[in-house]
Structures are given as structure tokens and as C-alpha cells.
């Protein structure tokens, strides 16, 4: 037997996911649909926020949503109240969505029928950060009840996201939420990150965020070669 030797092998462990995500991104681009994914810890209000988003966007835009959950279909049922097309992805024991799950969930949908597609990830601030889903925009949500230092505890997910949304602002006074401290936490792990502070329940701050989505959709379409 010969001596052990070292062979070089540069292989990205998540290559398979990245290849599928690239395919999805191309598919989204061709269809002209703007894809937004949502990540947060469990209980930060993703589903309420998304239900409100779908409802408020619908008069002007065609919207749809995929929603990931470990076990139940409750979220899809809640989102269906918005009357937007919604599909549930049940991940079983998996704590995050992967590009392949998105790809198979999209079968049967003609993406050209949509302006916005939302993908709600499983509530988890760790694993979803590693998986590209082909989205145009990744929103990370944190509620005012979670503590201002959440970004410092989970820098990776905040760093992987494009925009931060602070939810449940109607509870801010009750929990003595320190907005400056929260903003500093976000800024220190993701300098320059845009932050929306809103309440899906009362609607406060929602319009600014919806306008932002509208602008991003328009920008995105403007760069697509006809």
C-alpha cells in the first residue's frame, strides 16, 4: 500500500442547490415575476405579514405565495384567505427550504400570470441563510418582542438578507422596544441595510413597504431585455 496523499478537490457542497437556484432565477426573470423570500424566527409574524401583503397588493398586482412549514398546512389556509394562489411546502423534519422544493412546488403554475411571488421560509434564523432559492429579494423579519439584539445573535441570516422588516410595531410601547438600539444592531451586521418598521395588524408603515416593492418590481422589469 502506498503512502496517503492529498488530492485537491474544489467542490462547493451546496453546488446542487445553487445550480437549481440559478435555473429558478432565470425562469423568474423570463416570466417577469419578482420573487421575495421571507425568513425569520418562529413567531415573528411572517404569516400575518404575508397575508396582509397579499391582500393589499392584490388590487394592483397579481400575487402568489409558497409557504414552507415543518408539519402543518395551517399557514397556507391562513394565506388562502387573501384569495391569492397559495401552495404549502411541508418539509417534514427539514428546517429550511431548498431550491429543489421551490422548483417542484411551482409545477403547474404559469409564472407569467404573476407580478409577485412570495416564498415564506420555515421559521428558523440559522439554516435558511445558506440556501439560495433564486429569489430577487430576501426579507428578514424580526418582531419588536424579540429583543433589539437579534441581528447580533444571528449575523449570518441578517447578512444574507437584503432588507429588514421590524414587525408587530403596535406592541413596541408595551415591550419598551428601543428602535435606535435595533437599528444599530442591524447596521452593525449589515451596514446600509434598509429597514421597514411596521404593523401588519394595524397597517401602520405597510404603505411605505408596498411602495418599495412596487418600485423594485418596476426596476426589475426595466432591466429585462425585450
Amino acid at each position, binding site marked *: *500500500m*502506498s*503512502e*496517503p*496523499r*492529498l*488530492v*485537491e*478537490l*474544489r*467542490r*462547493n*457542497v*451546496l*453546488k*446542487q442547490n445553487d445550480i437549481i437556484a440559478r435555473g429558478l432565477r432565470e425562469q423568474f426573470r423570463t416570466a417577469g415575476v419578482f420573487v421575495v423570500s421571507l425568513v425569520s424566527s418562529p413567531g415573528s409574524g411572517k404569516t400575518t405579514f404575508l397575508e396582509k401583503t397579499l391582500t393589499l397588493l392584490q388590487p394592483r398586482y397579481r400575487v402568489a405565495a409558497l409557504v414552507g412549514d415543518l408539519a402543518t398546512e395551517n399557514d397556507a389556509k391562513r394565506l388562502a384567505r387573501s384569495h391569492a394562489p397559495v401552495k404549502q411546502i411541508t418539509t417534514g423534519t427539514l428546517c429550511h427550504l431548498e431550491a429543489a422544493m421551490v422548483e417542484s412546488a411551482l409545477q403547474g403554475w404559469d409564472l407569467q400570470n404573476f407580478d409577485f411571488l412570495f416564498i415564506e421560509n420555515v421559521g428558523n434564523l*440559522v*439554516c*435558511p*441563510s*445558506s440556501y439560495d432559492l433564486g429569489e430577487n429579494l430576501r426579507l428578514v423579519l424580526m418582531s419588536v418582542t424579540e429583543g433589539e439584539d437579534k441581528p*447580533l445573535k444571528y*449575523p*449570518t*441570516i441578517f*447578512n*444574507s438578507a437584503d432588507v429588514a422588516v421590524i414587525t408587530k410595531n403596535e406592541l413596541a410601547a408595551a415591550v419598551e422596544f428601543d428602535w435606535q438600539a435595533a437599528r444599530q444592531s442591524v*447596521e*452593525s*451586521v*449589515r*451596514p*446600509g*441595510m434598509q429597514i421597514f418598521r411596521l404593523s401588519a395588524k394595524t397597517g401602520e408603515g405597510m404603505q411605505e413597504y408596498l411602495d418599495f416593492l412596487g418600485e423594485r418590481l418596476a426596476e426589475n422589469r426595466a432591466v429585462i431585455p425585450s
Partner: protein
Amino acid sequence: MSIVEAATDEAKQRGVNVNAVHLRLGALSGVVKDALLFSYEVACQDTPLAGSRLIIEEVPVTVFCRHCKQNRVLASMQSFTCSDCGTPAGEVVQGKELEVFALEVEE
């Protein structure tokens, strides 16, 4: 587990046995070193990699400082600022790796 698959494929192609898998793990990869080491053994069971070692090289986060026009290693994951001048620096140059970069093999 993709790490085991990647190494197994390569070993098969080369017709060699794998003693160790060398992995580069960025601090921003979203994967925890201890969790990987713990699950590696389980993932290797009943595969040609059973009994092999996983050697992890941790890669710190490097950002580009626009003020210094230099790449800087972050002093802390809680503060994306230049370690030299303190300017906020969000442009990540390195630190997202999750890559099998070498195999220690035997014929």
C-alpha cells in the same frame, strides 16, 4: 449529506480510499463546525467513507473597506466594520465558503 456524496464520487472516480476530507468552512456559511463534526460520523455510516476523518479549516470573514481600499478580516461577526479605520464595511469578500477542497487518499 452532500459532503459525503462529493467525497464518495471523487474516490470512486479515482479508485482510491479516503482517509480524510478537508473542508473549508466560512464563518458566514450558516453551518456550525461542531454540528458538522458530530453529524459527519453518522453520515458516513454504511458508505465507503466510514471511518474517515473530517478536517475543517475555518475561514474568517473578510470585508472590503471602501475607505482604506483594502480587504480586512473582521474582528467580530457582530460588527461589520473595518478593523483598521472603523468604517462600516458590508461588502463580504470571503467567509461564505462551504467547500470540500481536498481529500487525503490511499490507493
